[in-house]
């Protein structure tokens, strides 16, 4: 259910400002994806979709602002490279601070998930 809500919010870009929670989540998903190596924007979007079994589809209008913001925050860096199909693309890669940030985000997230699940299924 949480994920449904997230998807719904991700689609509503007009509510971007209020979606601080979402933003943090998207950032975390991006960082998480980049943990395994460098990837371009399209590849990141695809990876999230595939790994969530098509539950999460990140629009370009959310993905690229998030990538640029993370780059500016120094959590990821980018360089131009050629893809397997000879398409020149901007590849993003985790930095040391990004790696650290990811860990913090994950533990926060875990806490939230635990909390919510406890509320929903009181033991």
């Amino acid at each position, binding site marked *: 259910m949480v994920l449904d809500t997230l998807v719904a919010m991700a689609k509503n870009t007009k509510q971007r400002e209020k979606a601080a929670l979402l933003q943090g989540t998207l950032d975390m998903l991006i960082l998480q994806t980049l943990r395994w190596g460098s990837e*371009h924007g399209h590849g990141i979007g695809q990876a999230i979709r595939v790994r969530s079994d098509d539950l999460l589809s990140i629009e370009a*209008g*959310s993905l690229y602002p998030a990538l640029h913001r993370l780059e500016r925050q120094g959590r990821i860096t980018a360089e131009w490279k050629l893809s397997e199909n000879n398409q*020149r693309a901007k590849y993003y890669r985790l930095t040391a601070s990004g790696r650290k940030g990811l860990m913090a985000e994950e533990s926060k997230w875990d806490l939230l998930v635990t909390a919510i699940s406890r509320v929903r299924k009181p033991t």
Partner: protein
Amino acid sequence: MNWIRFRSKYWLDIFRRRQLERELDEEINAHINLDIQHRMENGAPEAAARAAALREIRSVSAVKEATRDAWSWQALERVMQDLRYAFRMMRRTPMFSALAILVMGLGIGASTAVFSLIDAVFLKPLAFHDADRLVMIWEEATHQGVPRGDVASSNYLDWKEQSEAFEDLAAYFGNAFNLTGEGEPERLDGIQATPNLFPLLGVQPLLGRWFNAAEGLPGNLQRTILSYGLWQRRFGGNPNIVGQSIRINDQPHEVVAVMPEGFQFPRGDTQLWIPIQFPRVESGPNGRGVHFLRVIGRLKPDVTWQRAEQEVQTVAHRLSETYPATNKNYGAVVFPLRQDFVQDAQSSLWLLLAAGLLVLVIACANVANMLVTRGIGRSHEIAVRAALGASRVRVARQLIVEGLLLSIFGSIAGVSVALGTFRFLSRLVPPALAGAVAPSLDIHLLGFAVLVSVVTGITFGLVPLRQVLTFDISHAFRGRAVSVAHSRIRPLLVSLETALAIVVIASTGLVIRTILNIGNVNPGFNPDHVLTLRLELSPVQYPTVQSRVAYYRSILDHVEAMPGIVSAGFTTFLPYTNFGGTSGLFIEGPPDPRPPQTYRREVSPNYLATIGVPLLKGRWFSEQDDSNHPPVVIISEGTAKRFDGDPIGKRVRFGTAAGPWSTVVGVVGDIREEGLQLPSQRATTYAPYAQTPSVWFFNPRDLAIHVRGEPASLVDALRREIWSINPKQTISQIRTLAAIVDEQVSDRKVQATLLSAFSLASISLAALGIYGLLSFAVESRRKEFGLRMALGAKNRDLVASVVRETLASIGAGAVVGLILATIIARSLTTLLYGVTPTDSVTLTGSVMILFAVGVLAACVPAWRATRIDPMIALRHD
């Protein structure tokens, strides 16, 4: 640090913007292409894949727009947001903002104004090459009461030859010259200096060349260098002036150079320089017994002035052993040039700076006070913001931005105030520095103002910050915003304001009392209704005593015949116009081992009566006291004390034992020749102007005229009258005797005016603080009062309890203030006259003033407390 990093990134991005745009285009294109490729790999035909990719991304421009948003510098944006919010706050509370800006303006204005002065005097570079290596060297004769005295020319020559610390030494002395020729004859202040003075100062002339080494020797004297001002004023900026001849003291002088605008040495009013050199002699006017030179030196690069001083002292010591008759006990002292120029002004400038900064601190305390009050009123708002997710840091930053905004407006107000005071302040710049370094708006000053506003802004921010960091949301929502901590901060701020205000008021009081004391000193003459002018005689036109006396008499006859004139008289120097011209006085009888040094003044018969010096015994001079009659003198009371019994009829001799005897015919009152405030004064001896064939120096030049009406109205007629006798006569220093006397305290008056302004500011600020504290106390205890009134307490008791608390914090402040004032006043001793630093009248006076103001400020809130209606107060929440 973060801020700096953010900022540089931001600027970088502005330059990189186009590249970023290009990359964004390419990145989005790549995304679409990759998406198409991806869909085709999954089996879609190309056209369908393309359509699906474009559908998926919907609007390329919207994606780009959203991405661009991520570029914007977030920190800057947040600050802009804070600023917008702060502006909105300011507009919503215009009274509060105006008051805060006014208070800030007062504080920043006061400190900036004084800083502009400090800047001009201590910080602006002197306009000489490598001015830090320039020093003044003086003879030290503390045993004669002269710790910093002029130098004898042969001593100067020995210092120059025997010390290693200097690249060079140059000597000069002030002189005044008659400039005649085209236009009105004019008396000019100038310098006679050794030719190496200009290379030593290292300033290139605008036109022409420096003096060369041969100039200044006998036969090669008549050269001159003009100041820019003189060149413009008298010679219309004639570009061909170099090489031309002008008439100075009735001798042709060749102009060899014009100095650039702004060059001034040694004073702002020096208009020309004439070369002179000193042959080495052991006696006579250029020997070691006559001290008249100023000596300036340029230190070698690696030599400190302290080491140079040691070295000159060694030389001086050697000279005192070699020439004990003239040099016994004579030492030497060295001062860096700026320190030498500033000398006495130093302590009063520091006093002003201290007072200005105190006003600033008081203003800060006040605004902090206001902000705390407002912060308490805003607890609810802050609580709401915090509840909506604003972090405490965010709220704190907001408050600091608000404080900074106020102080920025405050400093704009303050700097404009300071700018308005420049003309007034420039009167406090020591004359040696005046002109070139008058207070002005420059980078130092702006830097200071910015520094002050940032520091105060942050200070303001910090006080309410405490409140933000410690506040409890639940309290705020329950309407109990007032935490105990804040009811403690405010009385403390009021105590601080009180204490500092007392320091400022007490210092002002001491300076004002000093001025009053000096003003009450009887100078020994009556300066009212006396007009004075200086007429320097040309030695070429009037070479003999007879010609001079005839000229003086004809001027006096003409002037005294003019309507509106009571009497007129000539003298060597009017009081305070020259602290030189002393002569040893030998009284007939057993030889005096220490003959008194007295001021020697040669006067016309009417002079003493004209300036109102009382005759105590004997008679005035008459026109019969000329060279055909036996020499006579009039002595002042102080001189008379050196005689056994009645001095009338006794005989005295000036200078050396060889001079003629003069008979004392009268005793007059003493004049405070050396300054109104100096308790020990040399006495004066007067000689008739027509009698003694004396050195040129003592010849009368100052004319005093006792007029019936307004002195200024006669000036034009007087000049015409004098020029009708001699059209080449220079007339200078036209002013009233009262103005000359007033000049004795003019520095102090400017100081006192500034200090009074500071005091007024600090009193008003303290009053404001007390008023605020009390209003707040009444307001926040409204409910309690209502309850107590309902239970039967009397209005009076309630008011008394509030006022008592306020008086307690004023009282605590007063105690601290008194202690501080006493400590600070100790360093003021040199600035005071007739009043001790711990003067009880001044100190208690300042405390009384503050208590009075405090009680006044307490009236309104106290009255408001009595009007509390218990019913309303209890309902009010």
